[in-house]
Each structure stands twice: as C-alpha cells, then as structure tokens.
C-alpha cells in the first residue's frame, strides 16, 4: 500500500474513502432552510450591480426572490433564460470576482448574498425533475453547424434550436461538454453532472451531437460553409504552451490540462498516479486546480511556481487561499530554468525574477525544488485556425462573433476578447446564436 511519502509517481496514496471524501463538492449544495435564509438577504436592488457583473446578465434579484417565494423552478427558468448552462456556472464561476464581488452586501458587510449557491439550489431543483422549461419555436428549415461541444458551442446550439433551427454539433472528443467534461476541477463539477447537463440541454430537441469529428481532419471549413446556412466555431484552446527549458521532455513532466482530464475521466481515483513532490508552473485557475487536486490525491508537497507577484496572478485571491488552505505552497517571482533528473524529473531549478521598467527579468539567483512531477499550466493556445483571420493568437471577431469569413461565427475561448471563463463562453455562444438567427431570418 502506497502513502503520501512513497517516492515517485504512484497511484493510491490515499484509500478509497479518503479520496471520495476529498473530491466531494467544494461548495456543498444548500438545504431548503439554508436557501431560505440566504435568499432572505437579497435586497432586490434596482438595476442591480450583481447583474451587471454577470457576463450572462442573469436577473439575479428576480431569481432570488422566486426562491424566497417558494418557486425555485421559476427561479431556474429565470436563470436558464439567460444562461442555459446556469447549472455548471453555479458550480464553476469565480463568483468572488463576478456577481458576488459586486453585491451591495459585499460592500456593506463583506458578506455577499450567496448568489452562486442559490443559483445551484434553483437549477438543481428543476434539472433533477428533468424539466426543460423551453420549447422550440416553429421550424425554420435552416441548418446550422456548431464545431466544439464546450460551453460556447452548447449554449449557441440550444439557443438556435429554441429559435427553430436544426443544429449539428461536431466535436473532436468522444464526449460532449468541452472543458466542463474534461477540464473543470473534479470538486467543482462532481459525479457525472457535466454529462447529465448536456443530455438535459439537448432535451429541447433539434440538436444532434456528433462526437469524433474534428475540424481540420474529418471536417473542412469550406465544406461546412457549403452544407450549412451558418457555422459557429467554438473549438476552445486545444494547444498548450511549452516551457522551452532544458529537461522539459523528462518523464514526470506533463500538461496540467492532461492531468486534470485524466482525473476527470478516471472511474477509480485510486488508479491515478501522482507524485510525492509536485510542482505546478503557472498562475491561473488551471495551475490552482492541478495543484489542489494533486494534494487531494495524496501528494506530500505541492508547490505552485509563478513568475510574477501575487497580484498579477490570474487565479483569484479566493483561489489562492483555497490552494493555501489545502497545503499548497505558493512561490512567487520565480521562473523555471531547467528540469533535472536521470530520465525522470527529480528537481526543478527556478530563477528569481524582478520586474524592471515593466519588464520581467531573471535576477540570477537560483533555487532548486524537489519534484517527481512537474505540471505545465502556462496557458493554452488556439489549435484550430481554419484559415481565418486572427487577432493576436485568437480568432478575430467583430460584433457578436462574426469572423473574417461570411457565414462563420466564433465564440468562447477560441475567439478574441473576453475572459476565458465558462460563463463568458456561454454568453458569447448565446449572443452569436441571436446574431445568426437575425442574419438567417433576414432582419440583419
């Protein structure tokens, strides 16, 4: 039997029970009583700042009031009306940076209304009943292709289906859901919620999901444009940035997203190997998720090494504290220089950094950290350009996701602009759908 101190990258550092315990909901669902008390705190603000802060503009005061008055199903409908993935967003949104940060009770008392958990309370109620609150408009006879079944693609597909169009959703992966299925931390989206949500979303009808079709392989952009009235690209960011340092190819060095993907797909967490000493390079949500989950799998020491200071980290203060509370060490102002080890990684060498005139430079001072596993979490990149114009390293868009090619829209992580968040992807998918609809129906 392995334990926390077993050297190397090994599975089953913890027992089944402990692992199960570690990977339950980060934020437990609210009970009816908790929801009533939490909902009671909302002031039903006018032109509420929380709504402005929500990328999908959910009518938060209204849905909370609907919970208060004993109609959580109506509350869920209010949420889904703007954000059909409101169930996932309730679990994964960094609310501390979004709605809850803007809540007037955060300003007044430092204790915002628990919008995220209330959203989960409402959406769970309706989804657990298997009710899809929307029906399709009369068929338009138009066919639209969506490439990528992540939040952006699904949101777009649902809205289009609702408006009466027939939608085919292609995805390169065997399962739909995008990062909801393969990327979100296991303690945020527990069990098979991501898959259930896709099924529920598709229950509106008019959406056909075709897994195993990759743009660039099975699919060509010009063929799609020829076969469909419109195309929506929501391929996310399929590539990962390399470290570009000596030893990057040693055993034990891997992409954080691949590690998380394996974890999310593992049916038995005791089979999942993890290092005794883990170092994660990066400063975003992916880095935090990889670090925390390594710790929860039983790693002894886990370090996040970030090249700038705390304030520059894209993971929120809440996420940083979450990592720290799990025993993850946060190292700031260090950049990777080399990975040492005989075949497999044994140590990572980091150089301290300083910012001079806005430029990050190495100070020359080095440290070495023990590591038998190193995760790269230094950002994802666009892997499917489809010959379209780029804006920086993403697909260039104007308006509600129009690309440089007529009839082709794009949204979510693959498109320029917007934060790389689930909720932003949902908003962009929805808005592109409205624009596609207007274009197809000739009102644009």
């Amino acid at each position, binding site marked *: 039997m392995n334990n926390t101190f077993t050297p190397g990258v090994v599975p089953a550092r913890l027992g089944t029970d402990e692992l199960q315990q570690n990977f339950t909901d980060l934020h437990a669902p609210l009970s*009816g009583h908790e929801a009533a008390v939490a909902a009671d705190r909302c002031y039903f603000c006018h032109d509420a700042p929380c709504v402005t802060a929500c990328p999908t503009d959910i009518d938060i005061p*209204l849905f909370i009031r609907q919970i208060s*008055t004993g109609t959580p199903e*109506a509350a869920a409908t209010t949420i889904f009306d703007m954000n059909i993935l409101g169930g996932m967003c309730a679990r994964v949104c960094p609310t501390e940076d979004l709605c809850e940060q803007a809540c007037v009770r955060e300003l007044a008392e430092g204790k915002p209304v628990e919008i995220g958990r209330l959203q989960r309370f409402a959406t769970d109620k309706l989804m657990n009943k298997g009710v899809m609150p929307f029906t399709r408009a009369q068929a338009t006879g138009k066919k639209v292709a969506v490439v990528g079944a992540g939040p952006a693609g699904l949101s777009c597909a649902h809205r289009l289906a609702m408006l009466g169009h027939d939608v085919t959703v292609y995805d390169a992966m065997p399962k739909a859901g995008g990062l909801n299925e393969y990327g979100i931390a296991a303690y945020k989206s527990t069990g098979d919620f991501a898959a259930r949500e896709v099924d529920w979303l598709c229950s509106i009808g008019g959406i056909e999901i075709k897994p195993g079709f990759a743009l660039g392989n099975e699919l060509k952009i010009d063929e799609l444009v020829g076969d469909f009235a419109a195309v929506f690209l929501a391929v996310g960011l399929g590539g990962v940035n390399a470290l570009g340092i000596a030893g990057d190819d040693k055993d034990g060095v891997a992409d954080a997203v691949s590690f998380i993907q394996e974890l999310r797909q593992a049916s038995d967490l005791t089979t999942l190997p993890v290092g005794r000493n883990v170092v994660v390079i990066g400063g975003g949500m992916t880095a935090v998720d990889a670090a925390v989950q390594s710790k929860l799998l039983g790693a002894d020491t886990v370090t996040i090494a970030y090249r700038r200071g705390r304030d520059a980290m894209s993971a929120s203060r809440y996420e940083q504290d979450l990592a720290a509370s799990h025993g993850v060490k946060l190292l700031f102002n260090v950049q990777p220089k080399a990975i040492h080890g005989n075949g497999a990684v044994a140590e990572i060498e980091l150089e301290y950094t300083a910012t001079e005139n806005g430029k990050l430079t190495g100070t020359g001072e080095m440290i070495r950290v023990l590591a038998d596993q190193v995760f790269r979490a230094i950002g994802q990149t666009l892997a499917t350009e489809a010959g379209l114009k780029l804006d920086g390293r993403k697909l260039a868009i104007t308006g509600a996701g129009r690309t440089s090619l007529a009839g082709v829209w794009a949204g979510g992580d693959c498109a320029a602009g917007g934060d790389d968040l689930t909720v932003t992807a949902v908003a962009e998918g929805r808005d592109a759908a409205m624009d596609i609809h207007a274009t197809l129906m000739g009102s644009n």
Partner: protein
Amino acid sequence: MADLTTDFLGIKSPNPFWLASAPPTDKEYNVRRAFEAGWGGVVWKTLGEEGPPVVNVNGPRYGVIYGADRRVLGLNNIELITDRSLEINLEEITRVKKDYPDRALIVSIMVPCEEEAWKAILPRVEATGADGIELNFGCPHGMSERGMGAAVGQVPEYIERVTRWCKQYYSKPVIVKLTPNITDVRKPAAAARRGGADAVSLINTINSITSVNLDTMSPEPSIDGKGTHGGYCGPAVKPIALSMVSEIARAEETAGMPISGIGGITTWRDAAEYITLGCGNVQVCTAAMTYGFKIVQEMISGLSQWMDEKGHTSIDDFMGKAVPNTTDWQYLNLNYVAKAVIDQDACIACGRCYAACEDTSHQAIAMSEDRTFTVIDEECVACNLCVDVCPVEDCITLVQLAPGTVDPRTGKVVEKEYANWTTHPNNPGAVAAE
C-alpha cells in the same frame, strides 16, 4: 401554461395584478412604466374636484415598521389625493388608455358628498375612455376631515347615495373602495351594493401612528415637531384585509359581489390567497413602493407556476375556493385533535419553542440536558405557538391524532365524528345532538 387573464366586471387585463390608487399610479410617466413592467392594470391616483388641487406636506409623509434586516413590514402615510390638476390628470389618462387598450385603467375619484360635484366630474372621466371608476371612501387622514374619504366610507347611507349618483351619471363599472376604519365592514359593502355598485375593493389604509420620536416627543413622521395619524398598509395589514374580504364574501347581503382585494400583497402567494377568498383580482401599493415595478414579474411567474402545479387553467378555477371553508368559531370541529411533532434532524436546538411553550403556553415541551427538545403529548394542546416561533420552516408540524387513538392529554379516545361547540356539553346553550 396557466392563463392569467382576468375579466373583472367585463374589464379585461392580462393578469390579475393591478396597482392600487397611490403614488405608483400618480401620473402618466409612472403608469406607462408600470405597464411596460407587466402590470395588468392600474387604479389611477385619486382625482379631486376641478380647481386648485390639494397640497401635500413638504416634510416626511411616510413612517415605517421594520422586520429583521430592515425589511419593510408596515408603511404609514399622510399623503392626500392627487396634488396635480384635474385637467392634466384627465389628459394623461386619455393618452395612456389609448396606448394601452389591453390593460385595465380605472380612475379613482374623491369629490365632496354633493350630487353636483359628482355630476360635474363623471362625464369628464367618462370621456377619457378609462374602463371604470373607483370611489375612494377610504382615505383616513386629511381628506376625511374635509368630509370626504373615510368620512363618507364610515356612513353606509352616504356610500349608498354617492354610489347611486355614480351609477346615474356614469355608464361604466363602479367600484367602491372601502375603509377598514370601521367595526363591521359588511355594512358599507352592503350599502355599496344597494347603491348599485358593481364591485367593492378593500382595504384602504388603517389609522396609525408608526412611532414616536423620544427626543422631540413628536409622533412620526414628524413635520416640524408635530405628527398626525396616517394610513397603515403593507404586509402587516394583510391579515386584517383578508378577514374583511372573507366577511364580505360570506355575508348573505354581500355574497357574490365582485371584490378587488387590497392590502399587503407582496408575493404571488398573497395574491392567490385573496383570490381564493373571493377576489376577482388584486391591487398592490406598498410592495411596488418598496421594491419597484419589477416585482410584478415574480407575482406573474409564481402564480402561473402554482396554477400549473395545481392544474388550474384560469383564475376562475380557484376563485372563492376557500370561502366555503371559512366559518365561525362555533362550527369548528372539536373532535379534531393534533399534537406538535419536532423533526429532530431539522431542529437546530435554539430553544425558542421551549421558551414559548414553557413560559406562555402549556409546558408541553421537554428540554434535555443535551438540548434535545421533545413534545410532551400529555400536555400539548396543539396551539401552534411553537410552530410559529421556530426559525426553521417545517421543523415542527402539527400532526392529527387518528380517530380511535387515545389522546394522552385527556385520556379520551379521539372520536371520528365531527362535533362542535353548539352541541358541546359545556355549552350552556347547547342544542342536543341529533
């Protein structure tokens, strides 16, 4: 989805939620925005006679009673009827009605208790195209001292007389708005019916002083060191209004008369309750004044969800459904026996039930050393006090004792048959049971 359309006295509106005559309906700007927000109808802020309009105080006109977290539970006001000219109001009403033909627009009126005054204003109101009128016999302050409002509403003969004039000089529906500042609300309602009223609406506000400033010794709201009683409304008055509505719905001389329910309506549930007690629609003031027009969205979504769940396809389906179940005390079943039951999983061990029952009720809750609270069936009279004070919903429930079982408190077998006070042996006036 449930159909919320209402037909009240032949006046159609897309939902039963109307704004009551008050500041929310004071002018064209408000009413247009209210309609855009989804309100089914409005009763325009009460119009007065031609000539210089009344004036309002220029200091605070509202007082308030708060619940926890400064939640508005009761609102008091010393505002008068419209302080804008009759002409302007009539012009605005005409314009708004023309633009919103599908919404109900009722004009509230209060002029002196003289035939000429009514004869003068009614044709002008009729010319606006509004759907009906509401007679404000309820305003309890300011106007009543001038012989109007509650001063009329408290004298059934006046109500009857004025209503008759209105039916004579106006062709569309006439609603009589009743004051609760009276001992028996059935009397003015019956008078309205005799006068030919098409409906009654109730309640207007209740005489009240919300608080006294202990530094200045002035009642509040205080105007330059002096205060006066105002009219009370908001959630706190709902029980009073519901009871009055039920009395009118039940009384022989008023039964079947259309009622527009008013008083403390804040959620879809409040509205549904009014409708089950016989109201054809409801009017809202304080909730809109507290939360804004948007609040109607919750009322609409909540009512339609509940109707769908219950299988009601229209408002008529459940209108008045609670009236037959509203009775007099003497007809309540004395053989119905219940006991409080505490759900130990839900209990958070605050001890409020214990304090309430031990100090002020029947000493029927036991508290153990480890703070477990249990009901002593030998003592529990099922008064409901513990249920009412418990902070956790459904933690304590009253459970009926099945007929045939022994009530540990009385040692008697619970009887199956219904029996009330009229036949009870302790009642000196009891009639023998058949």
